């Protein structure tokens, strides 16, 4: 029987079908849609793969998964790790949303991108070269840094709105819905990401519950992305 927890566990994958469906219904044409829809497709493929690996035992496909993803086998945990996909998702999310913000206002965000993207690349290089392996664990520092940087983009976006003489209706401005969803998602998840590694080892029950909070905010973000496709 499918429980509420199962639905929430799989939400990382199915939630992305919401914006994807509305994209094909409303077929938006704005320039900023491209990075968003590329993100949605990449995130869907990565999260679906991660969830299939995670739930392979319940789906009775562990043998096939072990064969296909043998390179992700971690001897210490005696299992296939799906964390590579979460880590890649995090990297793609920052890069694609940086592109999204650039499309919203190339002049304003060009300078910010020139600082943030190199910082993020250098951070990843140092992090994965000296401190952790990209395939082993969900990477708390990566998620936290990505979240902080995206929050920075959101804050700069709101500052830009305030500086702009043009009046914006928060309910009719489509990109504002995405930025609102992104702000909410990153604000709530930033503390979770910072302490997630530590929480998993010290309070597993709480870490599972708090990940449900993450999944719910992710559903909200996807709903906001879907609504932004409507004119």
């Amino acid at each position, binding site marked *: 029987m499918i429980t509420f927890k199962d639905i929430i566990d799989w939400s990382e994958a199915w939630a992305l079908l919401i914006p994807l469906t509305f994209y094909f219904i409303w077929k938006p044409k704005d320039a900023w849609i491209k990075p968003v829809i590329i993100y949605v497709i990449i995130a869907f493929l990565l999260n679906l793969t991660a969830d299939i690996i995670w739930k392979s035992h319940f789906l009775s496909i562990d043998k096939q998964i072990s064969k296909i993803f043998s390179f992700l086998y971690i001897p210490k945990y005696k299992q296939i790790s799906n964390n590579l996909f979460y880590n890649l998702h995090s990297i793609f999310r920052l890069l694609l949303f940086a592109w999204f913000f650039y499309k919203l206002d190339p002049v304003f965000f060009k300078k910010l991108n020139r600082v943030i993207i190199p910082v993020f690349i250098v951070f990843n290089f140092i992090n994965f070269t000296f401190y952790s392996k990209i395939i082993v664990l969900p990477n708390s520092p990566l998620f936290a840094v990505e979240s902080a940087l995206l929050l920075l983009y959101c804050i700069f976006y709101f500052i830009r709105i305030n500086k702009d003489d043009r009046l914006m209706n*928060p309910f009719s401005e489509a990109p504002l819905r995405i930025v609102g969803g992104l*702000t*909410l998602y990153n604000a709530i998840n930033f503390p979770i990401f910072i302490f997630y590694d530590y929480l998993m080892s010290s*309070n597993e029950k709480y870490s599972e519950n708090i990940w449900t909070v993450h999944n719910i905010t992710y559903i909200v973000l996807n709903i906001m992305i879907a609504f932004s496709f409507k004119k």
Partner: protein
Amino acid sequence: MNSGGNDISFLVTVSIAIMLLVVAGFLLAVMINQRKKWLLQKEMSGLKEHQQNQLIEAAVRSEEGERHRIAEMLHDEVGALLSSSRIFLVEMNTQNLTETDRQDHGKVKEMIDESIQKVRSISHNLHSTILKEFGLNEAIRHFMKKVAGGTAVNSTVELDEEYQLSNAETDLAVYRIIQELVNNLMKHAHSRLINIKSSLHENELKIQIHHNGDGLSQEQFEELRFKPAGLGLKNIQNRIILLKGNILFKKIDTENYTIQLSIPVLI
């Protein structure tokens, strides 16, 4: 679970709450700022609209003043001169004139009579005394009779008799709009059938002009009124703005067009 685990769980929960508060505060500040901007823009656009209306009103008033002045000059000076000339001409002794001269004398008299009529007609067009004395309905009827009379244009006028004078300036503006529209229909649209209907609903006067010429659609009207050639249409729009009314051009089919005017009136 150890106490360190509990502490970190508490820390994460508190951090989420703080982050939510910070974000909510930030969004609230953005919304307050947007509202301030909205109020300021609303005030600015109100002022701009008021200023624009004042300019239009001044332009319309000055145009009307000029029309009045020219009408008075035509009527009182040119008209008076022509009338005096006619009197002299009538009193002229034609007994000693040859047949040809007598015929010429008759022609000159006819031409002076025609000129007097034309001057009167132009003068009334520029400044309608009928509008002033008998109201909008009568002025429209008189105008239609005058412009369509003796032409191939078939005109009908069905006006709501409940409408009496609301405001002299409103009536004058409506009259000028109809004058301009009908002149355009005859000159540019080559209409052969013009029907004017009016109805009064509460505080709104609705006038519908139906015609069979090569009329305008709303898009064409919007486009033409910004072109130098569309000065008459621009004047119509200015008067409509001044009256806080509305004008709608509709194409029913290739030979059926309507122009609907909605004018708020104070009865």
